[in-house]
């Protein structure tokens, strides 16, 4: 392959894999923030929790990576319902600041708990043989794990899109994001909807966290370090929009990868420059609603 095309393909591929990670974790945050206007800064903690559950399942119980990921997503999603019912519910009418403060408090507690049980040393997970090494797609080879990540992302996108656009529940969610009062007045049980969305969003965050271990490593501070990234994806994509989150994840993921490859000196500059550029022009993000 000619050198220039080779570089472009590398950047696109790596960027795509990174974007999938960003999307999987951020989509839950975007929908819950769009649906209930709730600023959940503990979202990163759910991702971290998912990662640690996968670590325990694979290392202590010897389960395979794939089943561990699925179990982790379900477990964390289920547990998040307790948080939603018990804690979050009380703050739906509260100010942004109060929501920020409580969820940061939860995140701190989660980090401390993870440090207590798992220690501060970063963890990794054993990969099954078929995910190690490369996969040959004919014109060149690609790292298997990243190809896997892209595949998982693609499947999830398809499933989520179907759920959003083609099912009743999806329609109800979209209606509630558009205009909550109207949705309530036509008899949609928005409370139940939110619990469901929250659970799915947190489960997805857990899945993303588990997938990220191989990519970025897992330590207790995962919960806050990457939170900024997720918030950026949500802000740039637009609250409550699946399309928006995907587009933002793609743009940011690819720009970040390209920036690192081509202009490593500038560091993480690109992701923030793109964020500022987009938000100045479209303050509500790509597909957000002007409030």
């Amino acid at each position, binding site marked *: 392959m000619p050198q220039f095309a080779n570089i472009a393909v590398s950047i696109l591929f790596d960027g795509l894999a990174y974007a999938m990670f960003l999307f999987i974790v951020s989509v839950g945050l975007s929908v819950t923030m769009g649906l209930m206007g709730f600023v959940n800064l503990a979202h990163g903690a759910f991702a971290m929790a998912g990662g640690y559950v996968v670590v325990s399942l694979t290392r202590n119980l010897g389960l395979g990576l794939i089943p561990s990921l699925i179990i982790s997503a379900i477990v964390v999603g289920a547990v998040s319902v307790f948080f939603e019912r018990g804690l979050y519910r009380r703050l739906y009418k509260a100010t*942004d*600041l109060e929501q920020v403060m*409580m969820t940061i*408090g*939860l995140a701190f507690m989660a980090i401390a708990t993870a440090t207590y049980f798992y220690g501060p040393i970063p963890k990794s997970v054993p990969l099954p043989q078929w995910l190690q090494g490369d996969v040959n797609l004919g014109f060149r080879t690609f790292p298997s794990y990243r190809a896997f990540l892209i595949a998982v992302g693609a499947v999830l996108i398809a499933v989520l899109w179907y759920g959003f656009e083609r099912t009743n529940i999806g329609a109800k969610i979209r209606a509630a994001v558009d205009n909550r009062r109207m949705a309530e007045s036509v008899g949609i049980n928005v409370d139940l909807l939110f619990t469901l969305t929250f659970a799915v969003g947190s489960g997805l965050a857990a899945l993303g966290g588990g997938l990220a271990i191989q990519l970025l490593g897992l330590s207790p501070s995962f919960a806050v370090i990457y939170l900024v990234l997720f918030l950026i994806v949500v802000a740039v994509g637009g609250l409550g929009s699946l399309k928006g989150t995907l587009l933002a994840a793609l743009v940011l993921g690819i720009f970040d990868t390209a920036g690192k490859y081509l202009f490593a000196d500038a560091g993480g*500059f690109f992701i923030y420059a793109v*964020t500022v550029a987009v938000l100045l022009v479209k303050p509500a993000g790509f597909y957000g609603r002007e*409030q």
Partner: protein
Amino acid sequence: MAANSDAIGPHRAAARERAAQYLLRRHRFTWAEALPWVIALACFFLFPGRMVFGNQLLIWLMFAVSLDLILGYAGIVTLGHAAFFGIGAYAVGLGAAKLGWTEPISGLFAAALLAALVGFISGWFLLRYRGLTLLMLTLATAIMLQEALNLRSDFSGGYDGLPGLTFKPLLGLFDYDLYGHVNYIYVLIVLAIVFNLVRRIVYSPFGQALTGIRENVRRMHAIGSPVHRRLVTVYTIAAGIAGVAGALFTQTNAYVTLSVFDFDNSAKVMIMLILGGTGRLYGAFIGTVVYMVLEDYFSKLSPTFWQFGIGLLLVVAVLFAPRGVLGLIEDAGRFLSRRKP
């Protein structure tokens, strides 16, 4: 028509008179307001060995007060306030290291001016936005500033910073001691001056306008209040004050690194302020003291797990004391005064 306007006249005059009296009354110092300063001075004599810690506390307090101006009074939620702290800190640091500008008090002014300037420019552009958008824009700007300085780390010292800064003795007389005594009094005096300035702003008609903007910005627009101009003004002032706090940080530590721009600091100061109670001037005092004392205590008790304690405190505070400690005190006061027969 004429008869009607005559009828309104005396009412309007009376209303204006009441408003003026209200503003005047608020200006007056109550005895309770002397309390924080008395306590601060008392600490100087009671805990002479903790003055280095006390120093850091006062600096964070000033930083929190500057945030209260924009968060508590104007209702601007920003995640990039550490940028102004950092600008002040580096103005003094680079001034001392590269330009030989070691006179401390003029350094403070320079830092304040520079931070205010950046605040003015960024505020003019960014304060047209609100909510999550503003949050992300302010955060991104702060991070980009940090990255830009790291890019030129030969100049800025990067994360190893600018070490061994020396400053001329204060007013040519007071040199800095190991115990931080001189520094403490220095910072306390600057804090008193700055706070007085903030207090005047808050109790002025300008301050009232800010509260109006915070409570109902649409209505403020409707009555013709120059909202954007007011917001930029208060943002600029708050940036300047944060810059002074940063400058004091560098001067009293004789050292500055790029970590002054960290998002952690923006988040930390916001937490301190909210714990104490926003929009009430003294919330910053209470919140900062509570947070830093608790952090100091917990990290000595169990260096590994103070984070859990702070997290728990935050959650409990939001659930049971959403308007901060000051809110609790106000509620208690109201409760007690109601119980009087």
